C-alpha cells in the first residue's frame, strides 16, 4: 500500500511485519524514531508476540539480542555512530557466534568532534567484524532490505546490518509501498535456529577455541559471506516475485553500459548523483558518457560484480562519505581491489563528512574534472582550504592553540546565520 511517511516509520513498519520476537533498543539520534515507533506498536498491541526491552546502553542492546537470538527468538535492534562503537565487543561476539540478529544502523558520523549528522564512518568502522552490511539508497529500499535481511541472516546464521543515511533518509518523508503481512509471511518463514539453548538438548555456546581450530572457525565466517554473494542476488529476485519490485541485490547500475566515466557511491547520495549525471548527459550540456554504480552489498564486497560493471569504462570516481585517516578512501580501497589489473584510472573523493551537503553544482564541477582526469588521487570535496591552512599556521606559530573544533568554528563564522 502506498504511503507518504517518514523513513524511520517505514522501517519500523517493515520490521514489525517481519514478526520480530525480541526488540531491544537504546535511543541515539538519528535512530530514535524507529525504536519509538516499534515501542508504540508493541505497547498498543498492534505488534504482538514481541518483547520490547528498554536497555541501559547499546552494549546491553546487542547483548540482550545475543541472548534472545541464542534462545531461538528473532531479534532486532538499531543504533548509530557512538552507539555502534559502544557495542563493538558484542557486535563481534554476535557474528563470531553466528547469531542472525538484524540491526539498523542510521548512519552518522563518529566523534570527536561530536556530530549528529550523516556519514558512513560508523558502519564502515565495523566492515571487518563479519556482519553482512547492506546500504539503502532510498526509504523504499531501506524498508525492503530489512525484510531481506531477516531471511538472509537466518539462512546463513550470520547477523546483518542494514545501513541507511541518518536524517537524510530516516527523517525524510517520501512515498513508500508498504507490503502486506501476507506478502512478508510468504517471503520470510519462521526462524529455525542452527543452534539454540534448549533444556531438552543442552549445548555449550561460546566456548574458548584454541590455535588448533580458531582459523577454521574464522574461515567458516568468511565462507558464509562468500555464500551471501550468491544468495543476495537470489533473494532480490525472490523478493521481486513476491513484492513486485527491484530492491536489494549486490549492486545497482545506472547508465553504465556506454559510460567512459563511472561514479561509484553508496546510500542516498546516489540519487543526487543520478540527477547530476542525467543533466551532464544532455546534448546541450556536452552529452557526456557518464554513469553510476551503486554498491548495495558492502559486505560481502561484490568484487566480481564491480569489476564487471567497470569493464568497459576508462575511469572511475569513488565518492564516499568516509575517510580512512592516514590513507584516503575506505570504499575506494575495496573498489581498487576489484579492478586490479584492469588498467583503469581511479579517483577517490571524500564528501559529505559529518553531514555536509553534496550538491549537484559541486558534483558537476567534480565530474567534469574527473572526465578530464584533472583530479588528485584523493580529493576532499568542498573543503574550506582557507580555514584549514589558517589552523595549520596557528599551530606552527604557538603551542597552546586550544581545541581545534572551537578554532575552526570561529573561523568559518557563526553557523546560526546560515540557512543550513
Amino acid at each position, binding site marked *: 500500500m502506498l504511503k507518504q511517511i517518514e523513513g524511520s516509520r517505514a522501517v519500523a513498519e517493515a520490521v514489525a511485519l517481519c514478526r520480530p520476537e525480541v526488540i531491544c533498543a537504546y535511543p541515539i539520534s538519528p535512530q530514535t524514531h524507529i525504536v519509538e515507533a516499534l515501542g508504540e506498536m508493541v505497547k498498543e498491541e498492534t505488534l504482538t508476540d514481541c518483547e520490547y*526491552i528498554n536497555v541501559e546502553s547499546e552494549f546491553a542492546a546487542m547483548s540482550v539480542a545475543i541472548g534472545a537470538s541464542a534462545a531461538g527468538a528473532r531479534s532486532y535492534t538499531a543504533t548509530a555512530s557512538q552507539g555502534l562503537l559502544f557495542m563493538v565487543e558484542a557486535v563481534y561476539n554476535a557474528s563470531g557466534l553466528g547469531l542472525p540478529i538484524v540491526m539498523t544502523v542510521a548512519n552518522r558520523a563518529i566523534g570527536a568532534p561530536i556530530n549528529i549528522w550523516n556519514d558512513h564512518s560508523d558502519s564502515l568502522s565495523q566492515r571487518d567484524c563479519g556482519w553482512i552490511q547492506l546500504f539503502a539508497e532510498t526509504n523504499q529500499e531501506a524498508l525492503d532490505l530489512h525484510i531481506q535481511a531477516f531471511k538472509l541472516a537466518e539462512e546463513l546464521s550470520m547477523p546483518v546490518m542494514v545501513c541507511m543515511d541518518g536524517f537524510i533518509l530516516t527523517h525524510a518523508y517520501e512515498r513508500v509501498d508498504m507490503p502486506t503481512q501476507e506478502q512478508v509471511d510468504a517471503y520470510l518463514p519462521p526462524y529455525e535456529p542452527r543452534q539454540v*539453548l534448549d533444556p531438552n538438548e543442552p549445548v555449550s555456546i*561460546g566456548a574458548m577455541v584454541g590455535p588448533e581450530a580458531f582459523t577454521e572457525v574464522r574461515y567458516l565466517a568468511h565462507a558464509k559471506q562468500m555464500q551471501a554473494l550468491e544468495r543476495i542476488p537470489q533473494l532480490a529476485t525472490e523478493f521481486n516475485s513476491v513484492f513486485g519490485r527491484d530492491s536489494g541485490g549486490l549492486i545497482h547500475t545506472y547508465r553504465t553500459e556506454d559510460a567512459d566515466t563511472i561514479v561509484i557511491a553508496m546510500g542516498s547520495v546516489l540519487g543526487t548523483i543520478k540527477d547530476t549525471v542525467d543533466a551532464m548527459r544532455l546534448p546541450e550540456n556536452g552529452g557526456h558518457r557518464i554513469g553510476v554504480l551503486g554498491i548495495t552489498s558492502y559486505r560481502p564486497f561484490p568484487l566480481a560484480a564491480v569489476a564487471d560493471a567497470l569493464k568497459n569504462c576508462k575511469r572511475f570516481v569513488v565518492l564516499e562519505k568516509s575517510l580512512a585517516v592516514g590513507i584516503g578512501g575506505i570504499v575506494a580501497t575495496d573498489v581498487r581491489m576489484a579492478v586490479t589489473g584492469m588498467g583503469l584510472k581511479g579517483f577517490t573523493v571524500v564528501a559529505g563528512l559529518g553531514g555536509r551537503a553534496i550538491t549537484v553544482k559541486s558534483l558537476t564541477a567534480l565530474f567534469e574534472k574527473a572526465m578530464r582526469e584533472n583530479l588528485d588521487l584523493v580529493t576532499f570535496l568542498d573543503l574550506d582550504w582557507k580555514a584549514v591552512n589558517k589552523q595549520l599556521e596557528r599551530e606552527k606559530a604557538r603551542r597552546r592553540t586550544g581545541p581545534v573544533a572551537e578554532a575552526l568554528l570561529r573561523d568559518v563564522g557563526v553557523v546560526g546565520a546560515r540557512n543550513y
Partner: protein
Amino acid sequence: MSFQPVKFYQTGTFTVGNRLLAPEERSVQASAKRFNSINSGHRACQGCGEALGARYAIDAAMEATDGQLVAANATGCLEVFSTPYPETSWQIPWIHSLFGNTAAVATGIAAAIKVKRKKGEQTQDVRVVAQGGDGGTTDIGFGCLSGMFERNDDVLYICYDNQGYMNTGVQRSSATPPAARTATTMAVGPEPGNVFGQGKFVPAIALAHDVPYVATATVADLRDLEAKVRRAMEIRGARYIHILVPCPLGWGTASQETIHMARLAKETGIFPVFEAEHGEITSVLPIRRQMPVEDYLKPQKRYAHLFGKQPNVTVIARLQAMADRNIKRYGLLGQGER
C-alpha cells in the same frame, strides 16, 4: 525415659547432615539423581571455592526448576575451567558471551522464552540463571546488572565473589577488601595492599534496587546456599545471590581450608550472610561464635604483610572495625528471622 531432641550443628556435611535427616532436608548433592550440571573433569584448582559454590547452586536451581534451566556465564574462572577447549563440563544449556554483558544476555534469553511460551511454541517453564565472578559483576558487568535489576527481568544472577580477578592472575577488583595483596595492589610501600576507602558491596546496591530477592551466602554453609537458591527460584523477577568463594591461589590459603576460611569470614562478621526481599532484610544467618578478624586474616598469605615481627595493629584494628560495623548494621549476633 523422656524423648530428648538432638540438635545437629553440622548439617552441612555429607555424614551427619544427610543420613540422619529427612529426605526433603538433605542436600541436593546427596541424591544419586542430582543433575551434576557442572560435571567432573573441569579444570578448577584444587580447593576452588567457586567450583564448589557453582556445583551446589546450579544443581539446586536445576532441582527447583525440574531441570528447566538455561545458564549464561561471564568470562572468568568458572567459564574458563568449565569449558577447556574442546570439552565442556556443563550438562545444561549454557552460553558464554562476553565479560561485561552476562546480565543482559540473560535478560535476552528470558525475553525469548517468554515470547515462545506466549506463542505456545514452548510449554515448559524454562528459567534463566546468570553467573559471573566479582570482576564480571561488580566492575565491568555492573551497568548491565543494574539494568537487569531496574527492569525486574526474570533472571537469577549469581555472583561468585573471590575478591579479585583471579583468572587473569589475581588483580584487584572493586570487591577486593582493604589491605589485601593482589598483583595490582602489592604489599609494598607506605600503604601495602589494597587501600582503604574504596570498594563496593554489591548486595547492598542490589538492596537499593528493591528487587524481589537478594541474598548472600558462603561455601561454609552449603545447605543454606541451596535453600537460598531454592527460595530464589520460587520468585519471579530480578534476583541476586552473592556467594563468598575463597580462592586458595589468590588468597594464599591451603586448598583444604576453603570451607574453613569461608566460615571464618562469616564468624568474624567480615562477610554478612543475610536474605532480603524488596530492599528489606528478612533473615540473617547469625554468627554462632564470634571470632576476631585476626583469626581470619592470619591464614591468608594475601594478608601476610600485616603480620610477622611487627604486626600492623592499626590496619588490623581498622579491619576489625569494619567487621564490627557489619555485625551492627546487619544484626549478625541477633536471632535471625525467617
